[in-house]
């Protein structure tokens, strides 16, 4: 009988200590990685890339009709997929890094909910690092990739599987510490 009473007296304290400990842990994690806290994890890591059946944009502002992006040419190669838009401010910030990335592996650009002429102006202003560019004017492809904003960058390996996703503008330290090692592995 007495032991039961003791359990009931200690129960609130232990529960409280547990909640406090976990909250402290979470806060610690948040403090360590402030940029990571609101980003949801990609569900596609380790899975084969979704098909990208969208129209290819030619650099000279002509939508090449009936020609879709050719993903097969990257078989047995690493490549990247970068969702961007002319109306997206952080995309301008990451443009130089995408340029750097494109020197190492081919980058496929997907213009998200954009117009061809605006995309052309954006690429003229900030450079065109892309091996191919597709137009996802309704955002359907983005949804298939689990994209919820621009920019987002995916790295695909030689087996055609997504091995990495970064949401938000690519940052130099992320590029150096996370992206480069993955590519260098080949």
């Amino acid at each position, binding site marked *: 009988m007495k032991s039961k*009473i003791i359990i009931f*007296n*200690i129960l*609130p*304290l232990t529960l*409280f*200590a547990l*909640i*406090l400990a*976990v*909250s*402290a*842990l*979470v*806060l610690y*994690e*948040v*403090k360590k990685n*402030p940029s990571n806290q*609101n980003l*949801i*994890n990609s569900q596609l890591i380790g899975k084969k890339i979704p098909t990208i059946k969208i129209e290819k944009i030619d650099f000279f502002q002509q939508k090449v009709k009936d020609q879709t992006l050719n993903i097969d040419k990257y078989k047995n190669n690493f490549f990247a997929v970068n969702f961007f838009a002319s109306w997206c401010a952080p995309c301008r910030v990451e443009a130089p890094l995408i340029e750097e990335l494109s020197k190492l592996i081919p980058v496929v650009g997907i213009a998200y909910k954009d117009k061809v002429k605006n995309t052309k102006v954006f690429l003229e202003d900030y450079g065109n690092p892309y091996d191919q560019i597709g137009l996802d004017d309704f955002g359907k492809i983005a949804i298939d990739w689990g994209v919820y904003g621009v920019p987002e960058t995916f790295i695909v390996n030689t087996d055609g599987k997504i091995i990495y996703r970064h949401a938000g503008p690519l940052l130099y330290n992320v590029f150096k510490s996370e992206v480069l090692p993955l590519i260098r592995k080949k």
Partner: protein
Amino acid sequence: MIPEIGHILLILTFVASILQVLFWCFNIKKSDDITINVLIKSTFINFVFILFSFGILVYSFIISDFSLVIVSDNSHTLKPLIYKISGTWGNHEGSLMLWILILSFFTFLVSRKKHQIPYKLLSSIIGIQTIILCLFLSFILFTSNPFERLNVLPIDGNGLNPLLQDPGLALHPPLLYFGYVGLSVSFSFAVGALITGEINKEWARQMRPWITIAWSALTIGIALGSWWAYYELGWGGWWFWDPVENASFMPWLIATALLHSVRILEVRFILINWTILLSILGFSFSLLGTFIVRSGLLTSVHAFASDPSRGLFILIILGIATGGPLILYATKTSLFKEDKSQFNIISKESALLINNLFLTTAAATVLIGTLYPLFLDAFNGNKISIGPAYYNATFAPIMAPVILLMAIAPFLSWGIKKPNKIAKKLIFLSVITFLGGLGLFMIDESSLFSIICGSLAIWLLTGVIVDLTFQIKATNLRLNSFKAIFLYFSKNNLGVHIAHMGVAVFLVGVTGEQFYKTEFNIKKNVGDIINVGNKSLIFDKVETLPGPNYKSETATFTLLKNKKIIDVLKPEKRFYPIEKSQTTEAAILSDFWGDTYLVLGDGNKETGWSIRVYFNPLISWIWGGAGFMALGGLVSILQSRKSRKKLKNAI
């Protein structure tokens, strides 16, 4: 210069409160005159200092002293005066200042109960309140100084979020803080009892008014927040189970349970440990409520300053203020000897017991829903979301028995007395509820849940009325006028009846709004007419109008019912140039039966505008119900004061 005085006053109060706490610790079990008078005087000093410091802060906002970070971040010369004032607490640092102002005020008020509370207990209460004050002051002084200066004086401020330039939202924090601080008083009563080792029925009687004030304030505070969300956010919703809403709702649930468990304690000496535990938890949840909005732990529409480094300080405060008492609780609860007298299985005691069980479980459920995503993420990195669907499946079924019992409990008696005419009352209740449910069933739009919810509301409403009428019948007095009835009940639980009636009214409102509302989204141009049933909305015009610190696009609609003009609605879109943000001001026409709610979306003369129309039946009953609840609380405080004065005069 003046803000520095404000800062110095805070520092002085901090030092003084530390000394006061030490003084109390050294005199902890004494009950002599000197000890108590020192402590009482010190509460007055704390209050006055903080009052002046707070006054200086408000003054800085009024004169737009942009040399202070807080004023430049949150205010602007063009802001209307009343929002300059309320802007004082519309931010992290200022709201904490408001908190300690109310805390020191309540502590001062408690200290004036020198002749009603035994000295040993009173000194402990003051001591504990001062510890809390210390903790908050240290948080303010070390992490959230409101009097911080800017190096460069800006020409004007950054303005205030237009969503916050609103009377409802100006009152929302003060009322919530009255609630939290009220719960700190009952907390101090409880911890004080653990320290002094003495509890009796008088302890419960002295504690109850403080819980009632806290509960009433929380009721209005939460209702105000909901009402604000309803008319400001433009989607017709008033409760989202948002973590910050939950953070204020949990203390309310605990306070409700506490209110009832303390009531038992006044009559029968049982559940002492439980009452103490609830008092501790009530304040812990209040602390959680105060800090969760500013810790960076949760994502929410409300997130104040999401600052993780402050978050750690907050956790430490929480640890001390909750962990300490809980340790004390774990070691000292064998102190109190319970009453061994009997009570029926069907009695007021058992009803209140069950009420406590369900209310506490409901509070635990809300806590689980709020913290679970956090815990899961910490445990294995999985991220999930918890929305209204979860609470509808867990919280609602747990609260249903509370409503059922609420109607019956007043019929029951204390102890081993048999309840009076309960079969008659129950039959009457059941018949009316059945008829009501049938009536609901006849309505096209009804669903299973709407019928259940509506029937519960009818059950409770009828229960309160039945209780009133049978009580009138049972007295020997001839109560044949409303005045006589009113006078009779003002001596007999008038507050309780009003409060319970409030819950019933609230529930009726919820049933109407949740289950019978209609909404649609259409594109219309000037001159078009929208016909819904016997109502019509004529789209008259759209014009651009200036406001004090915004530009408005205002549409005018005329509402007709049965071809007769009822009123004009003017939904707006406001653009605030300084804050560079836009708000939608819905046009709401409220009456007894419900609201017509119009929102102006995007559009222009060529393509027309997108308009959202909502018909929300009985929604004003939600606010009315909350109002009645709070009124009931206030009435019962006045009643207890009157009866105590009578007792005093009789002695």
